[in-house]
């Protein structure tokens, strides 16, 4: 994290408030005030700020692991970094092509086949048809889906989905790669293959963000880690420091 590195993305005092859930519901009218509050707090609708005054600097070549409990704001920070959500206050500054970056839990259209989703993901990442077609074979080979690639995603097992997601994300290289809990699925053999691929792309990517609950993923891949809790940065430092504190 030395300052001689090239600063590529910066979050400056970013706060992201979710507007209260505004879905209308007849049932709610008939609930007592107490019940209404209970329902609202259960459904997490009243959680005010998903991110609270977060300031982070990302440098070229960083591989950052983001850890934290469920609801700590990890996925929200990814959405801000990818430009999907704009901060309610504070500045978000990025030198990277933010349009072409995504976290890849489940952006697949489930009724489309794996192959169609490769096209769709390519289009969403701003690739042209030719660029997509050049990569198709690589993606299918790496994901080991073979003939299943022509079946709709809804028939896939979760392992198959994450294999395809990982292949797509790492084959269509972009300046910045956000991996939100994709590494945790897949068998041991595929995991090793993923790690190998990760080491390859670490050299060419400018910034990689990994969100994971698996300590070993963060420890083996990242050179920096951030510990989030309740939308605040608790610690930003080396992997060892953060992992010790997170325990």
């Amino acid at each position, binding site marked *: 994290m030395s300052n001689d590195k090239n600063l590529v993305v910066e979050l400056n005092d970013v706060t992201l408030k979710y*507007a209260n859930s505004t879905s209308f519901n007849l049932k709610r009218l008939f609930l007592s005030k107490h019940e209404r509050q209970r329902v609202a707090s259960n459904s997490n609708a009243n959680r005010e700020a998903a991110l609270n005054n977060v300031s982070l600097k990302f440098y070229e070549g960083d591989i950052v692991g983001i850890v934290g409990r469920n609801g700590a704001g990890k996925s929200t920070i990814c959405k801000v970094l990818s430009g999907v959500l704009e901060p309610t206050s504070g500045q978000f500054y990025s030198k990277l092509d933010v*349009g072409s970056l995504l976290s890849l839990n489940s952006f697949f259209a489930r009724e489309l086949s794996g192959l169609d989703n490769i096209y769709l993901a390519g289009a969403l990442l701003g690739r042209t048809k030719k660029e997509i077609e050049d990569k198709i074979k690589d993606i299918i080979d790496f994901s080991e889906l073979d003939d299943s690639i022509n079946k*709709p995603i809804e028939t896939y097992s979760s392992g198959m989905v994450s294999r395809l997601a990982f292949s797509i994300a790492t084959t269509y290289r972009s300046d910045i790669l956000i991996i939100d809990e994709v590494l945790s699925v897949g068998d041991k053999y595929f995991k090793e293959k993923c790690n190998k691929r990760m080491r390859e792309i670490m050299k060419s990517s400018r910034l990689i963000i990994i969100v994971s609950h698996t300590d070993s993923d963060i420890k083996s891949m990242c050179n920096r880690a951030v510990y989030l809790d309740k939308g605040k940065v608790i610690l930003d430092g080396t992997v060892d420091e953060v992992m010790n504190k997170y325990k």
Partner: protein
Amino acid sequence: MNTKAISRNMYILYTLAHLKKKANIRGTFLGYLWWIIEPLMLIALYSYVVGVIFGHSGADQLLMIAIGVTLWKWWSSSMSSATKSFRRYKGIVCQVKMPLPILPTSEVFGECYTFFFAYLILQSILLYLGFVPDFFALAITFLTSLVAVSALSLFLAVLNVFVKDTAFLVGFGLRILFYLTPIIYPADRVPENFRFLVDLNPFAHLINYYNNALIYTDKVQYENMLYGLVFSSFALFILIRVCKKLTPQIIRNV
């Protein structure tokens, strides 16, 4: 917005529309033939009901039914699938930075494929019977309906994020609208007291434009049609702005 972003968004729109249509017929025995069979069956059904049961025969009447039913198929399928589009593409809505109006609009364009096949058949029949269309009027009408239906689809899609009942309402709302729109009966059969139902119904105007452009070319009124185009473009523009403004809430609520 720069040209690169525009070409990316257009390619997303094309990919979504194209793949969606492909997915619908995957695994079916008849495949692409369904794009022709479906409208033909609807036309046959309504022609039987109106021509045989109600006894309103006459080539004009049947042709107008064929045009209306084909168009209605396009509009109603677009709107009912667009209503649920944000929910269906939740992953994209929540994770990809792109203009959200692309999603419901892609449904309208996707249904356009099917419509186009049915239209080609219809047009051949019309030409065979000696009706030469006013192509300029047809082009404006097509553009107007594309814009108007996209605007309505976007409205319904946004509404459905906040009021989940919209999807149910759209189902029978479209059925009611089908009967309120002069499709299986001519507009002049509507009694004077109920004429406002036709006058206020944008679909009635669109159907009328199409009938004029395809059959009654001497009744084409360009001025009237341009008003329609301007009005629907304005509505679409406003809705895109509203959708942009509501994007964080949509991502949160979808």
